[in-house]
């Protein structure tokens, strides 16, 4: 495989992949199929195992168990230089002692491919940097270095291109520009891209499919809109954008919907949009789907209604304004409202109601009430104990 150019991208298949480091488990039982030619993003907070997954695919780490297949061929046991895979590293990892063109030609030369220089110039032209081919990496700006790293990887026409937070070091404006460029290059060359990032906006704008990872597993996988509109777990609901979540027992069921009793308030969610239909259920709605009312609105069976509550914080952010309400029984509720007019809709301290269309709600699969978005800080004694255990297990293995 490594001897020739891949004509198109190849499928990547992870089967029961498991990776344990001394002291902790990075990935547990991962099963994943990434179809050829797609732009796939692995999204998650730092330490969720997304970078480890990437390194396993690249061959830079060895899996504890499980298999990795590229284009149907098992590559689990092969070395990184034998895999038809290339990586754009987070730090770019451009060789500082070589010129830009020698950096790009490195992989071609190692494989003994003819006309390495010409092909490298073509790749540099693709990222619009051919005029800088004689420079050293240190003489380039961050965005230019990123593009060289990209050219150095795609010039090899790998079956699979791995991107490890490649835009993390760039400033916001440049990042947006590079996102678009990356996307168009992927359309042009048609390779399979596997992109690792902690930036939800980046993942959603670029990828066809996003997998949200947490604590070594994939929580949910799907098209960006689907993930956003219908998150399945509290983690996804809060990591991908923000959500208002309410927990309570199911108090009534119709053919098409369930009703949840949240401290006396009835919240209705369509059955098709709820993971579970009995027991204690957590339901949610996105803040921008909420409508603010200064007077109690009329009861409407197609809308859920909360209130009255009090506005406890108003923060202006240009396009929209965020209101935080304290609603007795339901807790705090966040509302985003577009700034169509001038000035806030309601003032701090005002009494308000909120409503939203029943069709915009979603029901989560979590059984317990949603955990806070981040774990509570572990106290130092626990950390010390964990460290000690990790060391002990390391010593035993050595």
């Amino acid at each position: 495989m490594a001897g020739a150019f891949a004509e198109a991208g190849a499928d990547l298949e992870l089967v029961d992949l498991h990776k344990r480091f001394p002291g902790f488990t990075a990935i547990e039982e991962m099963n994943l199929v990434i179809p050829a030619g797609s732009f796939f993003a692995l999204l998650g907070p730092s330490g969720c195992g997304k970078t480890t997954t990437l390194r396993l695919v690249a061959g830079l780490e060895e899996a504890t168990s499980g298999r990795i297949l590229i284009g149907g061929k098992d590559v689990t046991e092969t070395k990184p230089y034998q895999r038809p895979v290339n990586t754009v590293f987070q730090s770019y990892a451009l060789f500082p002692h070589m010129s830009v063109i020698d950096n790009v030609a490195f992989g071609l030369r190692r494989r003994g491919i003819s006309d390495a220089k010409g092909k490298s110039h073509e790749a540099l032209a693709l990222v619009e940097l051919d005029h800088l081919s004689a420079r050293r990496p240190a003489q380039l700006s961050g965005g230019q270095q990123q593009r060289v790293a990209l050219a150095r990887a795609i010039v090899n026409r790998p079956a699979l291109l791995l991107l490890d937070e490649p835009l993390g070091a760039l400033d916001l404006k440049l990042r947006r520009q590079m996102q678009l460029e990356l996307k168009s290059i992927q359309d042009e060359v048609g390779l399979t891209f596997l992109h690792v990032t902690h930036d939800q906006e980046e993942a959603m704008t670029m990828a066809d499919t996003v997998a949200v990872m947490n604590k070594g597993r994939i929580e949910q996988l799907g098209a960006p809109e689907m993930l956003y509109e219908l998150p399945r777990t509290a983690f996804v609901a809060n990591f991908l954008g923000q959500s208002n979540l309410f927990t309570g027992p199911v108090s009534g069921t119709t053919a098409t919907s369930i009703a949840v009793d949240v401290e006396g308030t009835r919240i209705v969610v369509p059955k098709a949009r709820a993971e579970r239909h009995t027991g204690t259920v957590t339901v949610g709605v996105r803040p921008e789907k909420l409508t603010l009312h200064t007077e109690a609105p009329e009861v409407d069976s197609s809308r859920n209604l909360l209130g009255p509550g009090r506005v406890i914080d108003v923060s202006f952010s240009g396009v929209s304004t965020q209101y935080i309400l304290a609603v007795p029984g339901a807790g705090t509720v966040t509302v985003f409202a577009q700034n169509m007019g001038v000035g806030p809709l309601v003032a701090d301290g005002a009494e308000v109601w909120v409503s939203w269309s029943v069709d915009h709600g979603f029901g989560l699969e979590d059984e317990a009430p949603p955990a806070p978005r981040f774990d509570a800080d572990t106290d130092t004694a626990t950390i010390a104990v964990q460290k000690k255990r990790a060391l002990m297990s390391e010593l035993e293995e050595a």
Partner: protein
Amino acid sequence: MTLQEGAVLADAVTAPKSRRRGRIGRTSWILPSYTTLALVFLLIPIVYTIVFSFNNSIKSNISWRGFTLDKWLNVCSAQNVCQAFGNSLLIGGVATVVATTLGTMIAIALVRYRFRFRAAISLLLFLPMATPEVVLGSGLASEFLGAGVEPGLLTIMIAHIMFCISFVVVTVKARVSSLDPALEEAGRDLYGSPGQVFLRITFPLLLPGIIAAALLSFALSFDDFIITYFNSGSVQTFPTFVYVSAARGIPAEANVIASAVFFIAIVIVITQQLAAAVRRRRLARTA
């Protein structure tokens, strides 16, 4: 250069300079004047040694008897001095090659691999730098004596390699740990086999550190006296030649050799400094 001179030099080589601005403010004249005087004081014996390499001395080189270029043109006319110098070059060359190789291997292993007895190994590498030379010298001499090895060129080389290794490790280790492991990973990712990655990426990137370590080793070996004296037998190196001649007067030819070595070393240092400055400027211009 003596052993501990190596330690501070290894430091100067390995410590990257910060470019934090100081307060320019109102600097009093006391500190600059003191610094000037202190630097002049440090240079006095060097100037003396160089000046007296031009002395038209007869036997001992103590009082000034007029300027001559004779000693520079006929360095080898003084008995044994050139042979001693040659021995020093030979010993320095061999010690540098062997110590740099062994030390670089250890430095890579220390940074890149996990293994047991790390602390003990670090201690073993640190101790030679903290042991007085007279102890190192007499220890080796008593080992050779016990084993019945005649002191000579070989025993001097063995001794020099021993004390150079630690300094090579310190110097190269700093370079290895500042090397981004992602660079080697990128090499493997781009179809480089382990051998190719070492040859084309790791080694070229470590080279400045290895060269610095080699220069340091050579300087240490070239100027070592105490350890050499205990293990040299009848073989003379340049420093033992100076020591032995001290009783009856050191010939001006010794000053010539020392001065020449001094100039070469200064040229190397200044060239390296200028090259670095030019590189910095070029980077600043294009980036």
